[in-house]
């Protein structure tokens, strides 16, 4: 990836900064509206608590970033749009209409914010910045986040980066704002790999594709549509994916570097290998191998090529996924008669069932935070995406449909992406298949724009 250097930006003379992560930008509707109160009571802060139900979105003004030349001004406007869209999509912010803004980008560049101007339009937070070309061809981008009610800078940074990198900088800025306000890491500077689909259901054409989390920079990673590709998953440590490909009609697990598109088969076995996922250190892939009708879980060390079997039942053991600490693996198995979720130690020992609700459970995916497992549930003819704790308690269903499947976590463990497929009629119409995201709270469900139908999403870690 392109280099991106940054350092904190001190507030202008005469203003205080609040860098401490313990303090959050105040403000939910009711309290902040109480005007004199918030002016001087900087200590009485209320954070956006994203672990609760849908919070009141924070009214934020994102001013166009100032640029002195027409080119710089254009990039500044584009960056503000990307930041605004990220914050809006999170469901936690309510960006205000820039047409209502009184203070101009140029005025914000020249002097500190005129806070009454921003309070007048009911902004509670203000984001502004500027970009400037450097002699070496790179650009310097500054941004600041202000709490409009206590006249205090809450965050600020300077980035120096190649000009072509402006979109990433905008996502990094949105992540900084998200983190400052919620106390949680953001997830905007990330990518999503998925399967792009088209054609009739009987002869569906599938390609791997990758895009930024907001749908920008879309590109196809595979072009040969003769062979199916399925279930891509990101490495937690590098820009690599592992997936299933039917190259030459031999279903095998592959690893690909998404920047170079170089791919490599992960071992070659007499049976079918599928359902791959990286270990948290990125050095191993856990997968299923089907032989003579039995499907067991194996782990392959990508460096030593050592291959070891973790389960030995004559059942279907599949969809394995490591815990983020690497010590346990969750998977689904029909060893008890129906598809349920099981957890075992990373060496295959101590298998115990964790799902006991009505219906079948599949595709368990451990949260990057370790606290929850997302899954697909099938019961009474419907599909659900849900979460439960690793001990099986606290099951919550987030969304339901004719067919939803394949949850993947944002790296901060607060948002889940999955795909939804609609019914097909007997003439082959319908079957629309699209990616969606939803907050862990079950709120803020959104369709992700893709050029074609889309399935099997996998969220990247934050880009290093």
């Amino acid at each position, binding site marked *: 990836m392109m280099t991106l250097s940054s350092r904190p930006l001190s507030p202008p003379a005469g203003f205080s900064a609040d860098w401490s992560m313990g303090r959050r930008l105040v403000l939910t509707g009711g309290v902040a509206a109480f005007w004199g109160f918030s002016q001087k009571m900087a200590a009485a802060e209320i954070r956006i608590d994203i672990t609760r139900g849908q919070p009141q979105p924070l009214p934020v003004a994102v001013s166009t970033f100032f640029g002195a030349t027409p080119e710089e001004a254009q990039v500044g406007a584009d960056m503000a749009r990307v930041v605004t869209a990220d914050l809006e999509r999170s469901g936690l912010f309510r960006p205000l209409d820039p047409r209502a803004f009184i203070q101009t980008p140029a005025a914000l560049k020249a002097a500190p914010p005129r806070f009454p101007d921003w309070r007048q339009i009911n902004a509670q937070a203000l984001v502004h910045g500027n970009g400037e070309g450097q002699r070496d061809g790179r650009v310097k981008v500054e941004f600041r986040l202000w709490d409009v009610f206590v006249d205090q800078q809450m965050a600020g940074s300077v980035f120096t980066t190649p000009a072509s990198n402006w979109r990433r900088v905008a996502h990094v800025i949105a992540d900084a704002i998200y983190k400052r306000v919620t106390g949680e890491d953001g997830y905007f500077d990330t990518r999503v790999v998925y399967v792009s689909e088209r054609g009739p259901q009987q002869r569906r054409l599938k390609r791997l594709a990758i895009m930024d989390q907001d749908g920008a920079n879309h590109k196809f990673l595979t072009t040969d549509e003769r062979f199916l590709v399925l279930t891509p998953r990101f490495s937690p440590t590098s820009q690599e994916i592992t997936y299933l490909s039917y190259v030459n009609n031999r279903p095998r697990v592959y690893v690909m570097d998404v920047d170079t598109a170089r791919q490599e088969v992960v071992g070659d076995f007499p049976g079918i290998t*599928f359902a791959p996922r990286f270990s948290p250190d990125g050095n191993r892939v856990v997968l299923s191998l089907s032989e003579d009708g039995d499907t067991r879980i194996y782990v392959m060390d990508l460096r030593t090529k050592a291959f070891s079997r973790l389960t030995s039942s004559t059942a279907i053991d599949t969809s394995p996924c490591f815990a983020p600490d690497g010590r346990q693996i969750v998977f689904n198995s029909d060893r008890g008669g129906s598809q349920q979720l099981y957890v075992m130690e990373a060496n295959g020992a101590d298998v115990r069932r964790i799902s006991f609700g009505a219906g079948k459970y599949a595709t368990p995916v451990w949260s990057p935070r370790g606290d929850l497992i997302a899954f697909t549930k099938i019961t009474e003819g419907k599909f659900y995406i849900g979460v439960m704790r690793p001990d099986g308690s606290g099951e919550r269903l987030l969304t339901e449909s004719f067919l939803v499947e394949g949850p993947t976590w944002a790296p901060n463990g607060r948002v889940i992406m999955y795909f939804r497929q609609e019914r097909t009629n007997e003439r082959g119409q319908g079957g629309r298949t699209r990616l969606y995201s939803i907050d862990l709270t079950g709120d803020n469900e959104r369709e992700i724009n893709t050029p074609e139908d889309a399935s099997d999403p996998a969220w990247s870690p934050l880009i290093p």
Partner: protein
Amino acid sequence: MRSKVLSLIALGLLLAACQTAPQQGGAAGGAGAAVQPAAPPTSAAPATTLNAPAPGSRGDFELIGDRVLFDFDKSDLRPEYRARIERWADWLKRYPNVRLTIEGHCDERGTREYNIALGDRRANAAKRYLVSLGIDTNRVTTISYGKERPAVVGSNESAWQQNRRGQAVVN
């Protein structure tokens, strides 16, 4: 005589299906004349001469019924399909140089990865019975497509039943 008539009908269907691109999966559960238009006979005579497929060819095999169907989330062979696999075995004994691939398929009502495993189980259930009837295990390979290659479109019970199948293809 009857089989010849069936062959002609099947070939007619085959030609018709070739002209109209998206097709249904053929008479998978029915009279045994399963037609798979996507896979024409490997050594078929020119279409104008209405000859039956060459003996031992892919088209010839399809005439005896090229697929067996399964219950939802099951891989046990139903009794009525045991008879079909016995026909496969007889046919393979008649053409000892021919090899089969048995494809395991599922309906859309399961998750992708589980269905790949279930399809593998179905393909192997068919293969095991074929081998038990005296067919050399090396003549039969298996592959699973999970829910990726339905024979029939439609989100309804009838389509799902047609799609839960083990489908044998002459290599």
